[in-house]
C-alpha cells in the first residue's frame, strides 16, 4: 500500500488514461485501437531510449549520445542478422553494440571525466559517420520478427492486442519499464543508484563504489539503447537506412524529462508523443479537418517546451547529473 501512497498522482493519471482509453474504445473501437497501436509502435524505441537516459541520469551521467547508440546498434543488428541469417544473432549483436557504445560513454565520462555532453555528441557524430560509410544496400533480413502473444494478457480488450501482442523488443520494452521501475525504487541497486545520482560523495562515503556503479549503469543502459536500435531495424521495419533513427534519441531525452526521470511516467510520455504523431497521420487519412500535418506533428515539441517552461523548478533532475565524480573532492 506504500506503493499506492508513493505514486498517488502517477496512478491517478494512469487510471484516468485507462478510463479515457476505454471510453474512446467504446465510442470507436477500430479507431482507438489503431491509434493506440500506432502510438505504441512509435513509443517503443522512445521508451527504451528514455530508459537509457533515466538510468544514466539517475546515476549522474547525462547521455546525449542515445541517438548514436541506437543508430550504431540498429546498423549492426540489421547487418549481423542479414549476413549470418540468424535473427537471434542479429538481435544479440545489436544489443551487444549498444553495450559497447554504452561502455564507451561510461569510460570517457566516468573514468576519464570527459565533459558528458561533448562525449555524447561525439558518440552521435562517430556513429553517423561510420554507419554512413559502411552501409551497403541490398541486404535483407532472413525472416520477419516473430510476433508473440502473451497468454491471458493479450486477450484483454484494447490493451491486450496493442501491448501484449508483438515482437520480442516491444514486449521487452514493457518488461524493461517494470524492472527498472521496481529496481530503482525498491532494490539495493536502485537506492544506491539514486544516491549516486543525487549526491555521489554521500554514496562514496557510505561505501558505495560510485565509479563502478556509474560504469555499470551507463554501460547496461547501452544494452537498452541497443534494443531500441535493433527494434527499429529488425522489428519496426526490416531494413536500415543512413540516419535511420531520425532524431528519436533526442526525442527520448525530452520524454525522459517529460516523464520526470521516472520509468513509468516516461512510458506514458512516450505514448502521448506517439498518440500525437498518430493523430497527425489520422487527420490526414480521414480528411476531417485541413490542419497542415506539420503543425499537428509539432505539438509534442511545443508542449514539451511549455511544460518545461511552466514546470521549471517542479521537475527536478537528479542533482549530480552532468557532474563528474572526483573521489575525496567532497
Amino acid at each position: 500500500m506504500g506503493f499506492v501512497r508513493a505514486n498517488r498522482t502517477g496512478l491517478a493519471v494512469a487510471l484516468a488514461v485507462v478510463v479515457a482509453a476505454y471510453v474512446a474504445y467504446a465510442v470507436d473501437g477500430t479507431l482507438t485501437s489503431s491509434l493506440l497501436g500506432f502510438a505504441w509502435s512509435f513509443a517503443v524505441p522512445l521508451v527504451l531510449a528514455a530508459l537509457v537516459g533515466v538510468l544514466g541520469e539517475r546515476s549522474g551521467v547525462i547521455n546525449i549520445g542515445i541517438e548514436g547508440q541506437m543508430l550504431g546498434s540498429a546498423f549492426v543488428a540489421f547487418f549481423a542478422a542479414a549476413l549470418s541469417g540468424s535473427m537471434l544473432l542479429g538481435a544479440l549483436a545489436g544489443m551487444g553494440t549498444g553495450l559497447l557504445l554504452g561502455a564507451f560513454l561510461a569510460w570517457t565520462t566516468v573514468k576519464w571525466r570527459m565533459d558528458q555532453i561533448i562525449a555524447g555528441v561525439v558518440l552521435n557524430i562517430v556513429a553517423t559517420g561510420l554507419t554512413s560509410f559502411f552501409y551497403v544496400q541490398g541486404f535483407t533480413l532472413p525472416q520477419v520478427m516473430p510476433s508473440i502473444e502473451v497468454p491471458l494478457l493479450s486477450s484483454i480488450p484494447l490493451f491486450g492486442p496493442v501491448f501484449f501482442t508483438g515482437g520480442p523488443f516491444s514486449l521487452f520494452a514493457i518488461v524493461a519499464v517494470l524492472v527498472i521501475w521496481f529496481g530503482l525504487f525498491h532494490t539495493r541497486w536502485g537506492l544506491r543508484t539514486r544516491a549516486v545520482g543525487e549526491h555521489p560523495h554521500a554514496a562514496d562515503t557510505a561505501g558505495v563504489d560510485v565509479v563502478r556503479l556509474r560504469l555499470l549503469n551507463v554501460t547496461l543502459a547501452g544494452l537498452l539503447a541497443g534494443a531500441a536500435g535493433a527494434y527499429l531495424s529488425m522489428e519496426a521495419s526490416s531494413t536500415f537506412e543512413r540516419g535511420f533513427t531520425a532524431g528519436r534519441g533526442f526525442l527520448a531525452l525530452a520524454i525522459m524529462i517529460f516523464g520526470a526521470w521516472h520509468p513509468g511516467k516516461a512510458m506514458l510520455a512516450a505514448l502521448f508523443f506517439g498518440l500525437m504523431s498518430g493523430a497527425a497521420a489520422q487527420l490526414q487519412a480521414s480528411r476531417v479537418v485541413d490542419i497542415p500535418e506539420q503543425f499537428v506533428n509539432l505539438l509534442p515539441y511545443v508542449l514539451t517546451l511549455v511544460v518545461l517552461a511552466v514546470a521549471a523548478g517542479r521537475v527536478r533532475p537528479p542533482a549530480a547529473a552532468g557532474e563528474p565524480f572526483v573521489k575525496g573532492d567532497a
Partner: protein
Amino acid sequence: MNDTSTTDRPGPSPAGPPREQGATSPENRRGVLDVLARFQGVLVPIVALLVAFAIGAALIRLQGVNPAFAYTTLFRDALLTESGLLRTLQKATPLILSGLAVVIGLRVGLFNIGAQGQLLWGAIGAAYVGVHLAGAPAVVILPAALLAGIACGAVWAGIAGLLKAYRGVHEVISTIMLNSVAAGVIDWLVSFPLKEPGQSIPRSSAIDPAAELSNLGFVPVGFVVALALAGLIAWILRRTTAGFRFDTVGANRDAAHYAGIRIPLVVTAAMCASGALAGLGGAIETLGVVGRYETGSSAGLGFDGITIALLARANPLATIPAALLVGVLRSGAAGLQFETGIQPEVVDVLLAVTLLLVSIPVLARVLFGRRARDGVSLTSGWGS
C-alpha cells in the same frame, strides 16, 4: 618606494609554507615534451588528423585504391581548381558561422544544439526579404536580407535563451525541441505561404538578383564576411567588457552574479548572438549559394557547427581552419568519387575519427602524459 636595500620585506619568508609557490612555476619545465605540451592545443588536432588520415588510408586501400592517389585527388579537386576552391570556400562559410555560433555558447557555458534551426530561420528570413523586396536597389535589399536572416536566427535562439535565463530550461533540451519546431514550421511556410507559384516542390521563389551575394573571383563574399566575424568575435571575447562578461558567466556563474553581471541578460544575449551567427550562415547560403530557400539545402549545417566548435576547442579563430578542413573534405569528395569510386561518406569517417581523438582526453594523455590539458568543458546538469 625606491628601496635599494636588500633587506627582506616583512611577511614573505623564503621558507614559507610550500603552498605559497605558484603551481606552475616556469622554472620547473624542462624537456622537449614540455615545450611541445605548451602547443598541445595545436598539436593534438594535427596528430588526430594524421591518425584519421591513416585510418582513412587503410579504408581506401581496402577498396583497392592507392590512398596517396586518393588524397591527392581529393585535395587537388578541392583546392587547386578555381571552381573547386570556390566550392570549398562556399562550403566553409556557413560552417565557420555555425561553428562560431556554437563557440559563443560554449564560452558562456551554453551548448547550443539549435544552430540548425536558427540557420534554417536565417535562410528563410533572407529568402523572404530577397523575394519580397524585389526591385529595390542592391544597397537596400542585400543588407535587408542579411539582417532579416540575422534577426530570424537571433529571435529563434532568443527563445531558448529566455527559457534558460528566466525559467531554467536547459538549452540542450529546448534547442532540440526548437529544431524540430523550426523544421516543421519552415516546411509549412515553403509548402504554402512562401511557396514559389506554380512550383510543386516545397521551395521559395528565387531571390531578386540584386540580393545575391557575389563572388570575388574564387572567393565568395560570404566567406570574407565569415572570416571578418571570426576575427571580430575573437576580439570581442578577448578585449571587450562584453567578452569578459561572457567568459565570467561561463567560468563561474556565482562569481559572475557576485560581480554584478546580469546573468539572465548575458545568457539571453549570448544565445541571441549565437543564433544571429547561425542565422547569418543561413542567410549567406540563401543569398550566396542557393539563390532561394529550398528544403534540404541546408541540411546538417547547424549540426556541423558543433563538430567545428569542438574541433576548434571553443576558440573562435580556430573555427576557420576547422571549417576549411571540413569544407575541403566535403568539396573534394565528389572528385574523389569521380576518379576512384570511393564513397563520399569516407569524409564522415575521417571527421568522426578526428573529432573523437580531439575530444576524448586519451590522445593528449598518450602524447603528453600528465601535462595534458583537459578538453573543453561546458554545462553541468540540466537544472539552471
